[in-house]
């Protein structure tokens, strides 16, 4: 993990999203899918915290060696500033950060499930899985056609793909959850990877646990520092031996987790309030990929 001043090679619009490619060989050579970058904001501005983005693409070889690409939805002040960044400007970058997805050793059929630009890190994962001889299928969903992240790229990377939109403007109408059961059947998926918002992740996790399919999810948790200092991005994670749980940092112990170990009830409190007493008896979760 390094902190570098990285030159922007390319900054462009990608449908409703934005994509920035930076030159950071020291970072790119160590990157694995699921890891993220921390980008410093300009000094003397009202938005001061670093912003954090999953890595969409890293090229370690060839003519573009040492570049990294990340994708964002310019919604807040920080991402709006980033959307104005032009090629040849420099960004304050820390990375690669966080734990990456684990590749299955024996299992071979992988279903990747993503909502919105959550697909960005999963396309990177798809490449790496395919390079390891794994079969990759995908379920990609979004609000509307414009929000489906690089559908053509998704098709190229997967054996079969189900695209769903909430308004039916592309693919079937519905959510990734509607499309998952059929895809699990048709692909006989042995492993599931997912990137989505909390409540969707929970439903995906439950579906996988029901069917005893090992899965890994990456959480989109807002982080104040991204480098393990502030303890604001914690996720309640059941200990491996089932002896209780700990609030662990999404930035350092995550953002990739085995969803069977997330204490969903505690994490998805509907009403903000102090945490309830922990439930009795935590499950012992087998090591990935179970």
């Amino acid at each position, binding site marked *: *993990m390094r902190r570098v001043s990285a030159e922007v090679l390319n900054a462009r619009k990608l449908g409703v999203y934005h994509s920035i490619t930076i030159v950071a060989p020291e970072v790119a050579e160590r990157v694995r899918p699921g890891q993220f970058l921390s980008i410093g904001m300009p000094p003397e501005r009202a938005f001061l915290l670093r912003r954090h983005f999953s890595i969409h693409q890293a090229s370690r070889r060839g003519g573009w060696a040492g570049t990294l690409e990340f994708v964002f939805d310019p919604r807040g002040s920080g991402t709006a500033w980033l959307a104005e960044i032009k090629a040849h400007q420099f960004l304050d970058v820390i990375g690669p950060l966080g734990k990456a997805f684990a590749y299955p050793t024996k299992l071979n059929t992988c279903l990747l499930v993503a909502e919105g630009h959550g697909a960005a890190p999963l396309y990177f994962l798809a490449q790496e899985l395919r390079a390891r001889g794994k079969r990759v299928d995908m379920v990609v969903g979004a609000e509307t056609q414009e929000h489906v992240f690089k559908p053509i790229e998704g098709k190229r990377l997967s054996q079969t793909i189900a695209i769903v939109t909430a308004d039916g403007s592309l693919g079937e109408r519905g959510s990734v959850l509607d499309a998952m059961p059929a895809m699990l059947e048709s692909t006989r998926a042995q492993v599931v990877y997912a990137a989505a918002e909390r409540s969707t992740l929970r439903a995906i996790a439950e579906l996988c646990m029901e069917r005893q399919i090992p899965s890994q999810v990456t959480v989109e948790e*807002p982080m104040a520092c991204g480098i393990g200092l*502030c303890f*604001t991005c914690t996720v309640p994670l059941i200990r491996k031996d089932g002896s209780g749980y700990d609030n662990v*940092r999404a930035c350092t112990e995550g953002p990739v987790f085995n969803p069977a170990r997330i204490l969903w009830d505690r994490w998805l*409190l509907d009403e903000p309030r*102090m*945490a309830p007493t922990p439930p009795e008896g935590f499950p012992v979760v087998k090591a990935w990929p179970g």
Partner: protein
Amino acid sequence: MRSSLVVDLNGLRFAHPVLAAAGCLATRRDGPGLVDLHRLGGVVTRTLTLAPSKGAPTPRAAETASGMVSFVGLQNPGLEEFVAEDLPRLRKAQVPVIVSVAGSSLEEYIRIANALHDLEGIVALEVYLSGADGERGGEPFYARPDRIHEVVGAVSRLSRLPVFVKLPPLLPDLVETARLCVRDGAHGFTLIDAVPALAIDADRLRPRLAVPVGGLSGPAIKPIALAAVYRVARAMPDVPIMGVGGISTGEDAVEFFLAGAWAVQVGTAMLVNPSAPVEIARGIQAYLKAKGIASPGDLRGRLRIQSEVPEPEVMS
């Protein structure tokens, strides 16, 4: 003239006056390790409680204009693990350690202070008073002068270490409270603790933190912190003050010295720039050199006040 960054807080010496503030460094479960511990003037630990604490539910932080509202809820490994795992690591880095302590009862403050005062590497205690007082219905300890008096008195009497009291700025009478702490044996102050603050998401009709009211930190609170330091320093010029609140550059730190601080702590700026303390120390050095001033201590009392008007009612 050669200037030196060494500061002496009435017997407590730091190689340079920039410390990491409480809650802005990981403990043993260290993250990527971007912070060069041995290059810090000192470290104030995450606030420590007797028993391990899991902290508050998330979301725990929200960015606001020039600042951050946060409430971590004192997540920490507890005394036992801190002594076994964290302290050795800090000792190895040869950085002076100030332990921030909290309790939910007077007895807990006493027990934790007792357990810490003989350990190598610890140079001082910082008493955190913004936690919930379990014996007074969960209101913060700082809300009642009698509780401040009890806690600060007990910890100061018990501990052989110098005791710094961390105070929030919005007390009915900050200066009078500070005087009381000194009478109770406090060695000095850390000014200021985060300012109580609320961030709201109007779209979802919700507070942006799980526990609605958190603490505001970052550049937004710097002027508030400066005023607190200035007022306490003017009343008690011989009592060391560590200034904290929105310091992110050498110039910010210099402003605190001019207001009357003896050293400074850096919090939120470290989250944004993990090498901020080192850069701030360099900035102070450059300022001293440019002005021909020998040490940060020589900046205290240098503030040129045009006219001393009695403090308005709002300040008392």
